[in-house]
C-alpha cells in the first residue's frame, strides 16, 4: 500500500505518472524538484524507511543504459543494464541496495520511452552477437509490476528486437502478465534462489522458495526461457543439504530444455558497504557470521567460497543436462 507519493514537477503531466496518481487517490502527494532531493540526503535511515517506503515518480536523465560489468554476463555478447526502478519490495539481508542507497523509497522512472530510445541506440552500435540487457540490477524486475507495468511494456519491445536479450531478474511470483503473452525466446525470466531455510530467515517479504519454483515451472511450461540465479551462495549450518534439496526441487519441476542458464555468485560485499549494512542490522545472523575482509571485499574465506561454488555447480550439472553455468565474481566499486 502506497501512502506517500513524491512527484517531480517535471513528470506531473506524464501519462504513466497520472495513471499511478489515479490509482492511489488516498495517497498524500508531495511535489519535489528532483527526486534526488528526497532520495539522496545523507543521514536517512534505510532500515526505518523500509518499514513504510514511499513511491517517488521521477524522470531518468542521462545514463539510461549502462555497460554491465563483464562478470555479470550470461552469454557471449556485450552486456548492459538499465534501471526503471531503484529499490525493491523485498528486504533481503544480503542485498547491496541497502548499502548503496541512502533511502528505501521506491523510485520509479516513468519515462520508459527514453529507456527504449537509449536501448535502440545501444543496439545500433552492436555487432553480430546479441546484446544482453539486465533490468534487475537496482530493483526486482517483476515485484512491483502492478505498479510499474514494466514487463507489459518492455517484453513486447524486446520481442521484436532479436539482436537483444532481456533478462528479468526476480524473486517475485507475479507472472500473470508474462503468462498472458506469447513467450519470447530472447526474454529470460531469471529467478533468484537460496535454500528454503536461508530464504525464510533472510529474504524478508520475498515469496517462499517453493512458490518461486512453481512460478518458474509455470513459465517454463508456457515456453519462456528460465534462468536460475543461485546468488549469493550462502554458508550456513546444513548448506549442503539445503542446496541439494533446492536443486533437486528445481530439476523435478523444470525441464532442462527450458533452462537458459544458471549463474552462481559468491557472497561478497565491498568493505565500506558491508560496514554500512552491518551497522544497520547488527543483530543479523548472516552479517554476524564468518565473513572476513579479503582485498576490498568482505566475504567468506576463499576455501569456503570454492567449496560452495564447487558443490553447487556439480549438483547443477548433475541435475540438468548440458546446463550453461556462469560465475558471477563481483568486483569492488
Amino acid at each position, binding site marked *: 500500500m502506497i*501512502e*506517500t507519493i*513524491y512527484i517531480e514537477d517535471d513528470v506531473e503531466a506524464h501519462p504513466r505518472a497520472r495513471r499511478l496518481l489515479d490509482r492511489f487517490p488516498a495517497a*498524500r502527494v*508531495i511535489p*519535489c*524538484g528532483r527526486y534526488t*532531493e*528526497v532520495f539522496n*540526503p545523507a*543521514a*536517512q*535511515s534505510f532500515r*526505518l*524507511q523500509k*518499514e*513504510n517506503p*514511499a513511491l517517488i515518480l521521477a524522470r531518468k536523465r542521462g545514463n539510461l543504459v549502462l555497460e554491465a560489468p563483464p562478470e555479470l554476463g550470461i552469454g557471449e555478447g556485450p552486456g548492459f543494464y538499465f534501471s526503471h526502478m531503484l529499490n525493491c519490495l523485498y528486504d533481503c539481508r544480503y542485498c547491496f541496495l541497502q548499502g548503496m542507497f541512502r*533511502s528505501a*523509497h521506491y523510485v520509479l522512472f516513468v519515462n520508459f520511452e527514453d529507456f527504449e530510445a537509449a536501448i535502440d541506440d545501444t543496439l545500433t552500435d552492436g555487432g553480430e552477437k546479441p546484446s544482453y540487457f539486465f533490468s534487475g540490477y537496482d530493483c526486482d524486475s517483476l515485484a512491483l509490476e502492478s505498479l510499474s507495468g514494466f514487463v507489459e511494456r518492455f517484453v513486447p519491445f524486446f520481442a521484436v528486437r532479436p539482436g537483444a536479450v532481456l533478462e528479468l531478474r526476480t524473486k517475485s511470483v507475479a507472472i500473470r502478465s508474462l503468462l498472458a503473452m506469447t513467450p519470447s525466446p530472447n526474454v529470460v525470466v531469471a529467478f533468484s534462489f537460496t*535454500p*528454503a*531455510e*536461508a*530464504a*525464510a*530467515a*533472510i529474504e524478508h517479504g520475498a515469496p*517462499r*522458495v*517453493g512458490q518461486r519454483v512453481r512460478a518458474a515451472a509455470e513459465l517454463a511450461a508456457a515456453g519462456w526461457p528460465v534462468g536460475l540465479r543461485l546468488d549469493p551462495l550462502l*554458508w*550456513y*549450518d*546444513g*548448506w549442503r543439504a*539445503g542446496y541439494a534439496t533446492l536443486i533437486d526441487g528445481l530439476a523435478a519441476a523444470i525441464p532442462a530444455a527450458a533452462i537458459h542458464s544458471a549463474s552462481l555468485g559468491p557472497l561478497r560485499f565491498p568493505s565500506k558497504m558491508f560496514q554500512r549494512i552491518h*551497522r544497520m542490522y*547488527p*543483530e*543479523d*545472523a*548472516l552479517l*554476524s*557470521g*564468518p565473513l*572476513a575482509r579479503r582485498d576490498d571485499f568482505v566475504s567468506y*574465506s576463499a576455501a569456503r567460497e570454492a567449496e560452495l561454488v564447487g558443490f553447487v555447480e556439480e549438483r547443477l550439472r548433475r541435475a540438468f543436462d548440458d546446463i550453461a553455468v556462469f560465475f558471477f565474481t563481483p568486483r569492488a566499486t
Partner: protein
Amino acid sequence: MPPGRVHLVVALRTEAQPLIDHFSMLPASSGRGFRSFANSDRGLALVLSGVGRAAAAAAVAHLARDDTDPAWLNIGIAGHRNLPIGAARLAHKVHCASSARSWYPPLVFEIPCPTATVRTVDRATRDFPTDDLYEMEAAGFYEIAARFAPHELVHSFKVVSDNRARPAETLTADSVGSLIGDSLETINALIEPLQRLSAELSERRVEPGGLERLLQASHFTTTQRRQLRRLLRRWSVVCPQVDAVDWVAFKALPDAGSVIASMQEHLEGVAPTFGPGG
C-alpha cells in the same frame, strides 16, 4: 529496550505552556542561553527557541549537547491562506523561502493528522501566496536537527493560528495557548512513535554485554577496544548461549591480543543456523 527520547523545540512560552503543563515538565537547570524544561521519566525535553530560523537552529544545538539518539519535534503555530484556525498539520516538506532549500521528513509511522508543506519565512506574511503553512522556525530547526538524528526522527508540527480572514494581529497569548492545548491528543500521537524510533536507535548503540568486564581484565589499545566491541556484538548473535566473558576466562587467555585472536577464530568456525524453511 532503552526508553526513547523526544526533544521538543518551541518558539514561544505561550506555545510551550500547554506542553509543559500536560507533560509535567520542570525547568531544567543545565546550560545558559535558552530556557528548557524536561520530564526525564517521560523521556521528554523542551527548549524555548525564540522566534526565527537562527534561534530555532541554535536551540536545537543547545538541546543536542547531552543526547545522541533523541527524536526531534518542532511544535508551533503557522498561518495559512484558508485553512481553518486550529487545523493541525505535520510537515511533509519544509521549505526555506530565503535559501530555497527543501527537506522532506520521511513519514515512516502512522501519521495522526493531515500533512502539508511548511514554508519558513524571515518575516511574517499576511497574504500567503502559496497553499503552504507559513511560519518562521521549521527550516532552521530541521536543518540542524537532521545533523543529530536521522531524518525519520525529525518532524515539524504546526497548528493554524491565522489566515486571510483572521490575521495574526487578532492573536492573544491565551488563544495561542489554546490552539496548542487543543492539539495535545495529536501531539501525543506523534510523540509515541517518535519515542519508539528513538528507542530502536538507542538499542542498536547499547554496548555489548561483557565489554566492561573484559576491558577491566586486560589492557586493550584503542584499536583493540573497537575490535572487541565488534566481536562481542557478533558473539551475542552467533553464540547467544555462551557467555563470552566466561569463555574467555575458561580459556585463560593471557592478554588482549590473544582474547581477540581466540574470539575471532572461534566465531570463524561457527556457521549461522537458520530454522526450517518455507
